[in-house]
């Protein structure tokens, strides 16, 4: 199978993730879309690793997973606290950071 197809799939996944981040209001869904974009990146790393025949891309994919796991921990904690204080998971409700 042509490895370029993996890149097409990754681009599609990334676009879906980005669109989700921009469009959806629910913090959980936005969070999931971010994960989707991270995984699209992982997919490109692995695909390029295969295409170029070295392991650098695969190693970086592991790094990305570790970072993503850490991010999930912090991110979910923030979302839980946000929900507790505002009784809503909408990112638009948390718009206090403006002048």
């Amino acid at each position, binding site marked *: 199978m042509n490895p370029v197809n993996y890149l097409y799939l990754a681009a599609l996944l990334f676009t879906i993730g980005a669109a989700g*981040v*921009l469009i959806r209001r629910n913090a959980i869904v936005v969070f999931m879309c971010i994960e989707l974009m991270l995984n699209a990146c992982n997919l490109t790393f692995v695909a390029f690793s295969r295409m170029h025949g070295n392991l650098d891309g695969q190693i970086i994919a592991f790094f990305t997973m570790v970072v993503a796991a850490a991010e999930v921990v912090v991110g979910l904690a923030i979302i839980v606290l946000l929900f507790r204080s505002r009784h809503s998971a909408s*990112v*638009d409700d948390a*718009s*206090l*950071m*403006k*002048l």
Partner: protein
Amino acid sequence: MTNSENLIALLVAAPLLGAVVLLCGGRRLDRSGHWIGTLFAAASFVVGAVLFVDMLGKGADERAMHQSLYDWIPVEGFQADVAFQLDQLSMTFVLLITGVGSLIHVYSIGYMEHDERRRRFFGYLNLFLAAMLLLVLADNYLLLYVGWEGVGLASYLLIGFWQHKPSAATAAKKAFLVNRVGDMGLSIAIMLMFTTFGTFTFGPVLEATGETSEGTLTAIGLLLLLAACGKSAQVPLQSWLGDAMEGPTPVSALIHAATMVTAGVYLITRSGAIFNAAPDAQLAVAVVGAVTLIFGAIVGCAKDDIKKALAGSTMSQIGYMILAAGLGPIGYAFAIMHLVTHGFFKAGLFLGAGSVMHGMNDEVDMRKYGGLRKYMPITFVTFGLGYLAIIGFPGLSGFFSKDKIIEAAFAKGGTEGWILGCTALLGAAITAYYMTRVMLLTFFGEKRWQPAPDPDKAPSVEPGIEVHPGEMPHPHESPKSMTIPMVVLAFGSVFAGGLFSLNDSFVNWLKPVTEFEHGHPPISATVITSATVVALVIGLGIAYVQYGRRPVPTLAPRGSLLTRAARRDLLQDDFNHVVLVRGGEHLTRSLVYVDHTLVDGVVNGTAASFGGLSGRLRKLQNGYARTYAVSMFGGTAVLIAATLLMRAV
């Protein structure tokens, strides 16, 4: 080095000590203060006389004495010493200052008898003497400047001595401020001298004039002239002298007639070498003198206040001196000679005026005098002799000194000589006119006395003298302490000029210091002398017709345009007000306007535009995380697109 040189400092120290004792001594000296003040003044005179005798005993070229007291400011490349120089010129001034000064101290004992602040008055008088002596004894311009400011301070304190009178307080301030303008000239001249010559000592500065560019010397000369104008009340800085008559009369006699106002003449004569090397500045001096001598004389003609008429006369006579000093070596000696004779007769006239006021409930309006010769015989005779001296009656002091100045003015040569000479002649005629007017109004004619004004309504009444409202004045001769100085000064007014002119003794005396050349007027001296006498007779005649033969109204008539202008000091205050005060106000206002619109405009405009811009940019921060995400994606997309484009190119 002889012992007499050590005495020079004593001249200054004696009155200075007197001032310190009197001003710091407090009330316990109230009873004896006037004696202490007079004693110190007289002590200074005695020292001066001793030095004079000592000086006479030496050859003409060895007479200059010098005493260094201490190094004042010894800095690398800048040396200022407290050192005195006593030469023939300084000696003349020392004798005049201490002599007339002592007489006026004696006079003040009687004149200020009822003033409860008499001790302070004598303290100020002593302070004045010390400063004035410092001025004429200094051997460098910087020390001269100390004395120059000192006399200004003393003058301020004494004009405003009756500071409870708003007019006196204002007059003192006015004198001080106008003098500052002149002082500025002197200080800049001194700075200029230092940068040019590297020293301020008279000797080196005046010797170095030959090697200096004429432009620099002209600048220094004009600045010195400005200084002289301020101190000597010459046009255009003359406006303070008339108001200075608010001070007690002895002050007017000593400071504003005989001594301090002649400091400008001293300065110009002392700096003669500078002016000799800068003909333009010298001509400016002569012109200022000529203008002022007419200006002062016209003002003197219109004033009804006896002291202000005399003040106009002082201005005019100093104009003569400045004119003579502006003629160069043919005039310096005569300027100083007129200065000394003027010191005698003008001080005598002022003391006479004080004596008249003393007897007339402090009335100063001559229209309310009249017929006083019978009641105040001594005052009449002494005042009359002073009068004859000032108008230049042949044989009296003023005749000799003024005639010499007129001759020297003609001898200047060319058109200038004719103009200056004729101006001086015209001045002589006007002098005769206004002085005859003063004389006739005061001592002749019928009595025009008025009852004393209500002191509440007329706050100008001097304190301490009991005046009962509605009471007619009882003119009486003044006490001996006042008449004796008047008699002594009258002797001076009569004989000084003749004595000085005998064998040209005064000119020969001053010659080593001021240089002297015989002027050669285009017409013979006899013609000029006759013309002077004719001018005198004309002025006298007109005044007699106007004031001697017709009754004098008690209230001044409206008068011609010139008379009204002259009553207002020829509009000098109006001029100053319109040009300087208004001009200054407009200048400040326009500067404030420029500051507010332009300078503030730029600053505020910059701030406002940044503020407005930030206000717009602020809207970008709306707090919505998704908006930030869009800008982040957008930015990344642009970056990637740019990178790809760069690679493609």
